[in-house]
């Protein structure tokens, strides 16, 4: 705490509170997604290993980075969105709104906690997987960069969704009709080159595709797109969503009437 200047103590406390919030229920927020990813891996690798190779990489290895990133993205989104909707519905968001914490600090605290959750879940899956499977990381910095940018993008998106939604079922709709399709149709389970041309084009409109493709490049050094292009598109998507989230926070959308 002493390392943090007095001015930064407010947002730092909010960040710590958000960290502790998911860590207190880590069975649900960390262990469960790790378990789900491992089940996907077990089933898909068992069925498809030996039959499919992508970019010269065997299928199980190809699948792992996709699964890790899918979990990272879903959990980063879940962290900020569920915290916001819960505290809105419970009414306890008022405790933060009454404090001198600015909208920008509020955004940064929620964003940092979402990134932290994404990193913890991603690392959890990685550490379990490498017990069984040999997985190279050719460009560790790229792996880290895509993890942070990807969870930042989804964390910011979760803030937007959390502010917009008034009820839990609206949030579930967001998760099931936007986040799930975007992550399943992003090339987690396949290379988009195996798709018909029309669906390849559609995949290029999905920011999740670039996150997963670039992340995978960090492991194997091969990908559908150039990692620089992917990184730029992911960064631009993040700035766009962050701008939207900040704009909503600044205007007090559904928070300060």
């Amino acid at each position, binding site marked *: 705490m*002493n390392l943090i200047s007095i001015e930064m103590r407010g947002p730092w406390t*909010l960040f710590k509170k958000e960290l502790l919030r998911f860590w207190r229920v880590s069975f649900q927020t960390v262990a469960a997604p790790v378990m789900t990813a491992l089940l996907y891996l077990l089933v898909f690798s068992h069925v498809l290993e030996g039959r499919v190779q992508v970019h010269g990489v065997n299928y199980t290895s190809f699948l792992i980075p996709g699964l890790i990133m899918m979990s990272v993205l879903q959990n980063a989104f879940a962290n900020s969105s569920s915290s916001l909707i819960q505290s809105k519905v419970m*009414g*306890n968001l008022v405790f933060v709104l*009454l*404090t*001198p914490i600015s909208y920008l600090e509020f955004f940064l605290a929620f964003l940092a906690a979402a990134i932290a959750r994404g990193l913890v879940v991603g690392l959890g899956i990685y550490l379990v997987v490498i017990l069984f499977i040999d997985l190279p990381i050719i460009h560790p910095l790229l792996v880290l960069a895509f993890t942070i940018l990807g969870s930042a993008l989804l964390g910011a998106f979760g803030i937007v969704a959390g502010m917009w939604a008034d009820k839990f079922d609206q949030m579930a709709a967001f998760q099931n009709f936007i986040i799930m399709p975007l992550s399943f149709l992003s090339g987690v389970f396949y290379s988009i080159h195996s798709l018909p041309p029309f669906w390849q084009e559609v995949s290029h409109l999905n920011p999740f595709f670039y996150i997963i493709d670039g992340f995978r490049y960090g492991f194997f050094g091969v990908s559908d797109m150039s990692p620089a292009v992917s990184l730029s598109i992911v960064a631009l998507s993040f700035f766009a969503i962050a701008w939207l989230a900040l704009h909503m926070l600044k205007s007090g959308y559904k928070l*300060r009437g």
Partner: protein
Amino acid sequence: MIPAIKIEQVQKHYGNLQALRGIDLAIEQGEFFALLGPNGAGKSTLINLLAGLIRPTSGRLSVMGFDVQTQYRQARHALGVVPQELVFDPFFNVREMLRFQAGYFGLGPENDAWVDEIIECLGLADKAHTNMRKLSGGMKRRALIAQALVHKPPVIVLDEPTAGVDVELRQMMWEFIKRLNREGHTIILTTHYLEEAETLCSRVAMMKQGQIIALDSTANLLKKIPGKNLRLKLSAALPETLRPLLRHEEGNEYMLALTEVAQVERVLSQIREANIVVEDMQLIEADLEDVFVDLVGQP
């Protein structure tokens, strides 16, 4: 001296609904001030505006001289708000929650002693490590008060703090709040319990339909109702000739408003002439509720 609260020409509209229609109010430092009014009068809207939870359609509000919008950091440092709803964060225990709340205000471990003192004073010591979810309603209310005090705000606003609180807790709470007032904190409360406002507050604003309809010291407001109330229990209905004096009735019990004690004689003789028996009778001093009923039109 800078007023603790200054509200200038504040209006708040929700579409066509005018929640506040031009409020002007200054509350001096050290006052114990009550905001009274029926549901929907605009009390909570006014408090939410002060707290920055909503924004005014027009007008300005300041806390200890700090504009709640342009100098919101200083204004919020100066203000502690006890919300009306029993809201809580289900993830944490009482002490954690209070330390987090202090942290949001930029306070660190140096403030822990004060947090412990509030916990002690509000009778929360044996619940300090209990999760907020597991607290009873009364304990949650105490925790809410504690939460509003963690940053030692000079101005404390309590929105209906005693709604649903038992008598014992209510008294303990008021003792603590009176102590804070003696120590120099400005206290503003909204309440439905008029007797609370009467015994605690030095000044009262009465609101109706988004406007302040009376603003005066409690003593002056009480003076506006000279006379007394006469409570009568009769064997039959009140004679029509006495109806103009009727304040309210319940079955065969009637409350009449008298401007002077001498009126009792006339009232009784009219009852006698109508061959009605007085079963019970009581002469009562007018209280704030009477002022309230007169001004607002309903208790």
